[in-house]
């Protein structure tokens, strides 16, 4: 072993140690470093990314083919089933990705990595949550875009520039809401087995009880009600409208049993849901990270 320079071993002089830096510089430094870690993990273990695109892709191709010969005029506005399904699968992709937001956090809790973060002088421990949100938002948007491109190649249409913006905003709101839910679960549940179980159980029923695969007019009354209350539906319908070329937020996009909803109402509900969930999990996060 070589002998070290004195610099290596001496403690930082007390007057230099807590260098006065802006809170913003500290916050962005720690948040970016934590986000970078999540992306490094993704780059080295890309199976989550691949599976997250592959699964909806299989839905799109197989489910689309299943009803390819559905009689014309069965769906509203004479839409083909592939086109109808596209919006549902795009939303399902973002939803599934965001639902997994809590998993890395849960593993960090279980393996003690979180404790390593908590002994560090983080400017704010929100940076841990913020990094997860940044990571999962980008991941789910990337996956959704991959599905949109594939759907376009399959001839299921492309929303155009203005429509694309509407699609992204809608997905963003849904992803925020679901991420909040998943992060809350990651701190509330005892371990990753339980979290995976919840994700597994929540995933498909939420898909079926939405307008992703069929319009409300096809459903029995009780399922129609469920679908009309399902947050996924509030994301699917504005996107479906955008794909159909309607960018007016005032236009009715969903004829729910309790009344007609415009695109703006849908987005408003999603935004309220995201905000509500973040406020709901905040006390839990504060307690667990204090």
């Amino acid at each position, binding site marked *: *072993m*070589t002998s*070290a*320079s*004195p*610099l*290596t*071993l*001496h*403690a*930082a002089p*007390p007057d230099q*140690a*807590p*260098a006065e*830096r802006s809170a913003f*510089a*500290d916050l962005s*430094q*720690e948040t*970016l*470093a*934590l986000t*970078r*870690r999540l992306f*490094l*993990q993704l780059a*080295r*273990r890309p199976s989550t990314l691949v599976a997250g695109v592959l699964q909806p892709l299989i839905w799109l191709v197989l489910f689309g083919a299943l009803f390819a010969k559905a009689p014309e005029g069965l769906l509203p506005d004479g839409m083909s089933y592939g086109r109808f399904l596209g919006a549902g699968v795009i939303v399902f992709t973002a939803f599934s990705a965001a639902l997994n937001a809590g998993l890395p956090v849960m593993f960090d*809790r*279980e*393996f*003690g*990595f*979180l*404790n*390593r*973060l*908590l*002994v*560090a*002088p*983080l*400017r704010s421990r929100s940076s841990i949550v913020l990094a997860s949100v940044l990571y999962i938002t980008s991941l789910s948007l990337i996956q959704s875009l991959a599905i949109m491109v594939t759907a376009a190649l399959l001839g299921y249409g492309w929303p155009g520039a203005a429509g694309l913006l509407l699609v992204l905003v809608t997905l963003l709101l849904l992803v925020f809401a679901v991420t909040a839910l998943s992060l809350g679960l990651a*701190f509330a549940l*005892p371990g990753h087995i339980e979290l995976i179980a919840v994700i597994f159980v929540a995933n498909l029923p939420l898909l079926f009880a939405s307008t992703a695969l069929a319009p409300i007019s096809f459903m029995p009354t009780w399922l129609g009600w469920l679908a009309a209350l399902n947050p996924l539906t509030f994301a699917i319908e504005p996107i479906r409208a955008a794909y159909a070329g309607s960018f007016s937020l005032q236009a009715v996009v969903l004829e729910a049993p309790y009344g007609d909803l415009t695109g703006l109402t849908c987005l408003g509900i999603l935004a309220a849901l995201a905000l509500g969930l973040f406020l709901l999990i905040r006390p839990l996060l504060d307690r*667990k*990270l204090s």
Partner: protein
Amino acid sequence: MIQLDQISKAYGPVTALDGLSLRVPAGSLYGLLGPNGAGKTTALRILCTLLAPDRGGVQVAGIDALQQPRQVRERLGYVAQEVAIDKILTGREMLRLQGALYHLATPHLRQRTEDLIELLGMGGWIDRRCGTYSGGMRRRLDLASGLLHQPSVLVLDEPTVGLDIESRAVIWQVLRQLRDAGTTVLLSSHYLEEIDALADRLAILDGGRVIAEGSPSELKRALGGDRVTLRVREFSDETESARVQQVLQGCPGVRQVVVNRAQGHSLNLVVDGEAVIETLRQQLNQAQLPVFSLSQSRPSLDDVYLQATGRTLMDAELEVVGVRDPKAERKQAMR
């Protein structure tokens, strides 16, 4: 430099710390010795602001750790027992992350990283994924992480458990160098030899409180008397050792006779000086007991522990081995 005042902490019905007080002088290498379950880890977790005590005060470098935890975290390096590293990152990436969490500027971080790689002999491994590291290499990386921000206080929880000899030597040497350079180092261990060899001062913990405190030589000297380990057979049974105990107990100059169950029912005696040894031999001869082996030594830290608790450290370890609940312990560490 470090001050714990009357700290109490319970996990549900289990009391981990029971009015623990500790004073670690600045610039010293301080040992926390005790069997598993004595409360060492809990004390260190409280010190590192990971855990809030139920009662009591914590000060690090003159700062109240309960009031201003962030200021304490800036000055403190913590090498935890449960090695939490991201297996998929390389050592260098781990250090870069750690540096950002301590808000180090990039050029400074780069220089520190290079220095620590050299100091800890990690050159060949730093750019490989942590998942491929041996226990020793992981622990060196942990030490590097703890030292990255040049803390004035370094806290290590059983840093050499299960390590290879070379890594242990490296860590020991670095800890000594740090102390010599002015850093306050606090480490816990259940290895007597480690504390004896390294620590300037130590506290012995048992049942969540300090039962003895001082420098190793002070503690041993205060105990006085010579230690004799005696066997009448390589492995005696309980009856035989009890009989020997009876024979020797009345002997003049013999202060104490304890049967050491962990070591084949050998007998541990405390005697006043060498002259007593001859008396012992005569007594055993008269009772027609052979002497298989007899060794004599100065008191060790184990004897300090024995004196204070009435059991050897080894026995205390064995007692809790079956009782420990790894699941409950993991839950304690989890947020």
